[in-house]
C-alpha cells in the first residue's frame, strides 16, 4: 500500500456562530493515498467545504491533526500555506472562476508566474496543459468567448499546469450539462491515470460517482460511510 498523501487524525473544526460554537467537523479520521480519485459526498452543511479548505491549507483545524504531503497544516505560516498551494495543490471551482480580463493562456500561466518560472518554461507548460484538456487552439481567447465546458477545461488546465500532487475540485460539474460533465470527468480521470495526480471532489452529482474510486459520505461533520468502488 502506498504512503498516505493526506492524513487527518481526530480533526475537528469549530466556528463561532451567533455566540455559539458550531462544530463543522467532528474528530475526523481519514487517509487518502497518492493517485486516488476520491469523492466527498454529503448534504449542505455536512462539512465538505470545510474539509476541502483544511486539506487545501486555506483553513486550520481547531483540534487534531491534518497532514498534507507531510506538512502539518496547523503549524504552517500564511506564507508556507501559500507555497504549499502554489506548488502542490490545484483548485477547481464550481463557477470556473477564470480571470475575465486575461486570455486562456494567461489564466493558465498565472500559477507559473507565482512560481517565478521563465517565459519559455511557462509557455511550454501552458501549451502542454491546454493540450491535456484539448484547448490548445483557444489559447488567445478571453473566457467570455468560451462555453461552460470549455471554461471548466481551462480551470482544469490552470489547476494542472503546475503538475500538483493534489487537485481539490468543489462541485466541478454542477454548472455543466451532461455531455460536458462527462467530458470533464473523463479528462480528469485521464490526468489522474497519466500523471498520478490525487483528485479529491466535493460533489452531489450522480454523474461524478461513476468515475470515483472511493466515495466518502459526510453527515454533520462525521464520516458516515467510506466506500472503495473498485
Amino acid at each position, binding site marked *: 500500500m502506498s504512503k498516505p498523501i493526506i492524513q487527518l487524525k481526530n480533526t475537528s473544526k469549530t466556528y463561532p456562530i451567533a455566540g455559539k460554537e458550531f462544530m463543522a467537523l467532528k474528530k475526523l479520521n481519514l487517509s487518502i493515498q497518492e493517485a486516488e480519485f476520491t469523492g466527498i459526498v454529503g448534504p449542505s452543511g455536512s462539512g465538505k467545504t470545510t474539509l476541502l479548505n483544511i486539506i487545501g491549507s486555506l483553513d486550520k483545524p481547531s483540534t487534531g491533526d491534518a497532514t498534507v504531503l507531510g506538512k502539518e497544516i496547523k503549524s504552517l505560516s500564511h506564507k508556507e500555506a*501559500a507555497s504549499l498551494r502554489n506548488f502542490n495543490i490545484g483548485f477547481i471551482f464550481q463557477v470556473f472562476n477564470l480571470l475575465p480580463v486575461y486570455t486562456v493562456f494567461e489564466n493558465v500561466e498565472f500559477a507559473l508566474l507565482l512560481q517565478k518560472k521563465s517565459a519559455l518554461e511557462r509557455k511550454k507548460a501552458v501549451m502542454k496543459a491546454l493540450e491535456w484538456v484539448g484547448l490548445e487552439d483557444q489559447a488567445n481567447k478571453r473566457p467570455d468567448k468560451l462555453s461552460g465546458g470549455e471554461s471548466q477545461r481551462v480551470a482544469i488546465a490552470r489547476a494542472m499546469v503546475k503538475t500538483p500532487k493534489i487537485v481539490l475540485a468543489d462541485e466541478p460539474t454542477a454548472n455543466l450539462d451532461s455531455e460536458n460533465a462527462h467530458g470533464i470527468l473523463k479528462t480528469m480521470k485521464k490526468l489522474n491515470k497519466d500523471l498520478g495526480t490525487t483528485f479529491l471532489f466535493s460533489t452531489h452529482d450522480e454523474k461524478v460517482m461513476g468515475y470515483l474510486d472511493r466515495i466518502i459520505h459526510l453527515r454533520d461533520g462525521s464520516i458516515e460511510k467510506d466506500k472503495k468502488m473498485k
Partner: protein
Amino acid sequence: MIKFILKGILRDKSKSVIPLAVISVGVMVTVIMSGFLNGVFSDIINQNAKLDTGHVKIMTKPYFENKEQLPNDLALLEIQELIDSLNLNYPDLIWTPRIKFGGIMDVPDKEGNTKSQGPGIGLAIALQNSKSDELKRLQLSKSLRKGNLPTESGEILLSDNYANKLKINPGEKITFFGSTMEGSMVFQSYKMVGTVEFGSPLMDRGTFIIDIEDAQNLLDMENGTGELLGYFKDEIYNDQNALVISNEFNSKYSKSQDEYAPVMVTLKDQNGLRESLDMGDAFSGIFIFIFILSMSLVLWNTGLIGGLRRYNEFGIRLALGESKRNVFKLMMVEATIIGLIGSIFGTTLGIIFCYYLQEYGIDISSDIENSTIIMPSVMRAYITSDLFYVGFIPGLFSMLFGTALAGRGIFKRETARLFKELEV
C-alpha cells in the same frame, strides 16, 4: 508579474479608467485651485508693490500717519542724499521717489473754456530718467491704450477711464489746478499724450501720470518726494528680508528728535495688506487642505470600491497559491501605477487650464468698480513649480491610502473566511 498586472489594468476599464478619471479630475481641480489662488495673491502683492507700496517705503513719520490725505507738506526733503546713503547701506534694493497728489483736471475747448472737469490723483514717477526702472516696473508700454508714452517734460498720461470721462484725446491740452507743498494755489497746463489701463479699478478711476521732475517743479518740492519706494533687485517681495531692513533702518531714527524723521514700512504693513494677506493665506491654506482632504476621501473610496470589487479575483489568486502579502503588494503596485498616471494626466490638464487662466484670466472689473483697495481687475492663475507636485498629494497618496485600507481587509481575515466571502 508586473507586466501581467499592467495588462490587467489596461484591459479592465473598471480597474483603470474609472479610478484614472476620478484621480485625473481631482488632481486637475487641485492644481487649478492652487494655481489660481497662488495667482490671485501674487497679483495683489505685485500690483500693490508696483503701484503703491513698493517692497518697502520710506516717508516722514507725520506723512505716514496721515498718508490717506496725501500730505505733501510733510514730504521728505534732500532725498538724493538719502538715496545715496540707502544705496550704500542696502545694495539689494533699488530706490525710486514717487509723489502722489490730488487736484482738479480741466479740459479746455477750442475757445479756452472748460469742456470737462474732474478730480484726479497725480502719480509722479521717474518717467524721463533713462536709468530708472519705473517704466518697466509699471509696464506702461503694455498698459498703453491710446497715444504714446511721454518723451519730454510737460507731457502726461491719463488712465483710460479718466480720459473717457473727461472726453480728452491724446495730443490735447489739460490743466491741473491744485496746491504746492507749501499750500499756494497752482495751475499748470500739460499735453496729454496717451492713456493707460492699470488693471486696478482704484487706479483706473482717475489717475494721471506725470514725470517726477515736473511734479517737483509744480509742487515746489525740489529734491523732495512724498514717498521713497524700495524694490528688491529681483523684483520679488521677501517679507522676512523687508522686515529686517525696515527694523534696522527704523532703529537708526527711533531716538531722533526730528519730527520729520524718515520711517520705513514694509509692503505688508501698508493698506492693511498683512492682515488681508495673512487671512487670505490662512483661508487658502484651509481651503486647499479641505479640498485635498475631500479629494483624498473620494479617491480613497474609489480605491476601496475598486479593491472590494476585486475580492473574487483576490480569492482566486490566493487559491492558486499567491500569498496575502503578495496580493497586497501587487494591489499597492497597481494603485501606484494608476495614481501616478492619473496624477501626471491630471497635473498636465490642470497646468494647461492654469496656463489659459494665466494668459486670459477672469475679468472681475465690473464687480470691483468701486473698490477702494488696489487689486487686479483680472484674476489670473500663476504657474509655479509647486503646481507640478501639489496634485500628487491627493492623487497618489489617497489612491494608495484607499487601496491600503481595502487591502487591510484581505490581511485581517482568515484565508478560509476570506475565501468564502470572496464567493469562490
